[in-house]
């Protein structure tokens, strides 16, 4: 499908303008919450590296704690790549090996079939969330998310795991846009050029799991979501019919991951339905002693 698709382009972005908007957003979230620091999980991949670079630019490297949280099966180059980000930024860092925390839980999950693999991956993602939130309390910081728009739309993330965060700096950037932003920020080249992977088991790649390249997925998502095209129009523009259909179905099926769980309305006023406030308002900012 990767021939010239002029009618269904990749979502372009002026990276320097995106950086200006996102760093302004991060600073504003810090100011509105009364925090000055951020913790971010650093995997060695491009998403978390970009998030860390944005955090350092917005809050200052001294105010950023990058947590490396390998599992015993994590790729060895992941640690080197994560450290290259720490070195480039001069931010703080800690290493927390999640293997001894995760293994007792994994021992309860039988088999090596696909379902078990996904369950194991979810346990790792949620264990990292526990460590991030614990360290955020110790470091007096907000947890910075590392999920991008492609993942969020396809539900390619663990609910209450890697999707858990206080704010999502790259949450409205498609993977292909994110690469441009990463380059603009100076994310080290080895991170930019390796195939994206959640690194939850050896040999795992995002594109292998998603069954398509990020470029193909982004063309379809940009057309369906941002331009509100019908599936039919996507196909007429040269996008692959079966992939378009699968992407549309996945976006709909994963809606639940992008919203708070609903409550049955039994009262006069219900949060999320008719108790509607901005997240931050007078009185909600934490006041330091």
């Amino acid at each position, binding site marked *: 499908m990767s021939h010239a698709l002029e009618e269904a382009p990749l*979502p372009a*972005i*002026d990276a320097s303008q995106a950086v200006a908007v996102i760093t*302004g957003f991060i600073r504003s979230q810090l100011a509105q919450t009364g925090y000055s620091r951020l913790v971010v999980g650093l995997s060695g991949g491009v998403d978390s590296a970009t998030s860390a670079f944005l955090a350092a630019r917005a809050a200052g490297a001294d105010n950023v704690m990058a947590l490396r949280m390998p599992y015993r099966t994590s790729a060895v180059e992941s640690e080197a790549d994560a450290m290259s980000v720490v070195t480039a930024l001069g931010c703080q860092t800690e290493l927390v090996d999640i293997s001894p925390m995760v293994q007792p839980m994994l021992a309860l999950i039988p088999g090596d079939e696909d379902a078990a693999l996904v369950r194991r991956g979810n346990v790792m993602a949620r264990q990292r969330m526990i460590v991030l939130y614990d360290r955020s309390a110790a470091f007096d910081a907000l947890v910075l998310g590392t999920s991008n728009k492609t993942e969020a739309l396809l539900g390619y993330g663990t609910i209450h795991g890697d999707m858990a965060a206080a704010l999502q700096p790259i949450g409205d950037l498609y993977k292909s846009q994110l690469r441009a932003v990463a380059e603009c920020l100076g994310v080290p080249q080895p991170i930019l050029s390796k195939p994206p992977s959640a690194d939850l088991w050896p040999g795992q790649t995002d594109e292998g799991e998603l069954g398509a390249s990020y470029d193909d997925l982004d063309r379809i998502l940009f057309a369906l979501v941002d331009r509100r095209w019908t599936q039919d129009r996507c196909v007429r523009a040269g996008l692959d019919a079966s992939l378009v259909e699968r992407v549309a179905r996945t976006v709909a099926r994963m809606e639940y991951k992008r919203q708070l769980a609903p409550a049955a309305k039994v009262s006069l006023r219900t949060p999320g339905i008719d108790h*509607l*406030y*901005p997240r*931050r308002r007078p009185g909600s900012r934490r006041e330091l002693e």
Partner: protein
Amino acid sequence: MEYRIGLAQYAPRLGEVDANLELADSWLRRAAAEGAQLVAFPELALSGYLLSDLVPEAAMPATDERLGTLSRAAPGVLVVIGFVEETHDHRYCNSAALLRDGELIGVHRKVYLPTYGLFDEGRFTRPGQQIRTQEVGEPLGRIGLSVCEDFWHPSLPMLQAQDGASLLVNIAAGPARAPGSAAGTRSIAGWHKMQDTYALLGTVAIAFCNRVGNEEGLTFWGGSRILGADGSVIAEGPLYDEALVMGSLETDDLRMQRYQLPLLADERLELVRRELDRVIGERAGMPVSEDTAE
């Protein structure tokens, strides 16, 4: 005569009315010190934009003494400022107050409340029912106020121009959409085209004050502008950053501009009204008049 305008392009704080009054006071004093005779603030400058259910808490009547007190900080200066207005019968409106020396000269209640896409204003505030101009004395004579989305409906600025305005003041809280993409550039270009066109067709000066800063995930884009009645750009603020945007109109030019380009005087208001009445009637399913003779 030179008439100096200041646009306070800054970021109000969401829900913090007292803090916003202080902020407005400092920007007003700064603009007055630079010689501004009219100072415009952004939409909802006293409350912030994404209020949702904070609307009643942030609201005040247009006669609230805090508004008068604010304007008295700059003697003789016209102040246009956005706030959540609570009417005497408890309607909540997204309003612009026009003040001078503590006196409330007029109020414009936002007529068009965007309730689509990323906007949800009609969920929390009620639309205004009047499109008027205000007499402010020489050299401007009358001016027309509007709030953000109002300007996306050309009937409003063209009515105000017909009603005698020499200057249209639009105050805004315009969030950037897709910044850094072609769509984002088109969105800002749309604002520019519209303002340029109103100045040209209305032979009317324009002052547009748009806020900056962030609320939740929104980033407001600024880019405040002052246009002459010939469509020339007199001043333009930066995108995204705070700025006091200052510029001067030459009000003596208006007389010859309107002689050379007498569009306002040539407007066929009665004809427009007749045809509007017909369109309104037909849409409502009223019988179509048989009398079509010229």
